[in-house]
């Protein structure tokens, strides 16, 4: 056996050892993650009697509600993630400066992130209540609305509401992630620019933004994948309503399965959603390695 390091690669008991370390994780994953996914695939292709059918897919792919759901999910993810990254980046730039109470503010930033989404959504449900919630009235008093808006019972406003609540929870989180990226930029690069005579905006344009692009893109894509699965927020805040105006894919699957008891339609929707996710993951994965190569330092 050729010796390459202090520990030969395949000494006695190697495979048993590896298996021992990895097995518990694999077992858990197989039972609680892989099996349910596979089971859903199976359900989606079968009739109640167990025969093969494409009917479940035919049913959802021709239904308006599935496509509407898809559209709502995509637009919700796109809009909220873009807003979050934009504001988050500005906040991160501010947090990267020296000021009194900076540490305290960073702690405050973690509060929205750590709040359970369901509980945060409960709070927002109160804040957006038409008659005694503060938010509609604030808009009215600030002359931003002609009368206190009915946030949760107007389709467009309900959609805006979930984006607003999601942004509130996630902007600080994005800001902290981007702040870590900012702090990873070597300080002497900024010093060199200053000595060379560059002002604040020049530094931002020529140094900060180009160096942050990989971190921004990666964070954006991962946040997008997360937002794609949104459930708690919608279920608590709007229950998908009014009508189906905020029925994203996750709550749609839940509704099909547990409210309408149409398990096989739910399974087909799940598989479709899994396919969306897979496509996204492939995009993320390839762009990530592309970015990695382009910006590797």
């Amino acid at each position: 056996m050729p010796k390459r390091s202090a520990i030969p690669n395949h000494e006695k008991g190697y495979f048993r050892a590896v298996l021992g370390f990895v097995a518990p994780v694999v077992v858990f994953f197989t039972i609680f993650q892989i099996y349910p996914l596979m089971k859903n695939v199976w359900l989606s292709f079968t009739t109640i009697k167990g025969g093969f059918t494409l009917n479940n897919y035919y049913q959802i792919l021709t239904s308006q509600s599935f496509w509407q759901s898809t559209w709502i999910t995509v637009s919700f993810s796109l809009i909220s993630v873009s807003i979050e990254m934009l504001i988050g980046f500005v906040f991160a730039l501010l947090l990267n400066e020296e000021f009194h109470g900076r540490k305290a503010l960073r702690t405050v930033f973690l509060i929205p992130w750590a709040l359970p989404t369901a509980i945060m959504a409960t709070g927002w449900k109160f804040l957006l209540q038409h008659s005694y919630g503060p938010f509609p009235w604030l808009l009215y008093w600030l002359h931003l609305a002609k009368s206190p808006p009915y946030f949760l019972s107007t389709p467009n406003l309900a959609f805006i509401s979930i984006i607003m609540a999601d942004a509130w929870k996630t902007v600080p989180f994005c800001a902290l992630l981007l702040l870590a990226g900012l702090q990873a930029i070597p300080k002497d690069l900024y010093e060199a620019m200053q000595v060379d005579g560059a002002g604040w905006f020049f530094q931002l344009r020529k140094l900060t933004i180009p160096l942050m692009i990989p971190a921004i893109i990666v964070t954006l894509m991962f946040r997008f994948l997360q937002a794609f699965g949104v459930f708690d927020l919608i279920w608590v805040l709007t229950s998908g309503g009014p009508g189906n105006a905020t029925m994203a894919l996750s709550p749609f699957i839940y509704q099909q399965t547990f409210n309408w008891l149409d398990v096989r339609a739910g399974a087909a929707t799940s598989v479709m959603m899994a396919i969306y996710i897979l496509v996204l993951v492939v995009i993320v994965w390839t762009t990530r390695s592309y970015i990695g190569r382009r910006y590797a330092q």
Partner: protein
Amino acid sequence: MRLKRFLLYVGVTIMAFYCLFPIYFLVLDSIEPTSVSYSSPPILYPVAFTFSNYIGVFENIPLLTYIKNSTIVSLSATAIVVLIGSMAAFAVAKIKFRGSNPFMNFLLILGFFPAATMIFPLYEMFANFHLLNNYLSLILPYTSVSIPLTVWILATYFEQIPTALYEAARVDGMSRFQAFYKIILPLGIPAVSTVAILNFIACWNEFILALTFMTKENMRTITVGISMISGRFSYQYPWGEIIAGALLVTVPLVIIIFIAQEKIISGLTAGAIKG
């Protein structure tokens, strides 16, 4: 220079305001008596003060039971996932078995699938085994869901521990498992605690599985319990009590944040930016 400072502090004020203004209104609502908080238009500054909502929430809602349930489920899942996750992370980072990279990627990719895509088969499984309304029905899937992040963060950290330490331990006669729990694991404690905190918070906050598998009132977790209150009173939402409850159950999380701020941030960045 002075203008820049001024603008900076304006920005800082806006940021603090952004994070805190919804919380201000919630706190305000929770300390006002019903007569004030149900006035329309609302009064946006404190006019009266009462604890009645905080007392009421304990009388009308089994808040302590929810907290107990959430604690049991979150702690158990966290303990299990840290144990098995650190073993797998060790194998990935230090034994570097063949296929450890695809293994890691596989875990990460599956981790992106939302719970909704697998919820019915899990429900059916737990129903068949009579595990609905049993802590196990949450502990087991929570453990599984936490695996990708755990293994990822720990493997990244273990990678940075010099392999020479592991090799020295092996040359000195330790088995792989001994080298793991006597050398690598103790050195990895900072990352282990970070992961434990992140997982605990994630389990504590979980909603969809808890909503589905815990249908009895006395088995509900906090997130489901609080958000379901509204449904029980058809005539009027007891907003004061709901908000009081929501704020109360947030307190433990805020305490964790205050204590472990640095760890949380380092874990988030390791898990999210590089992940």
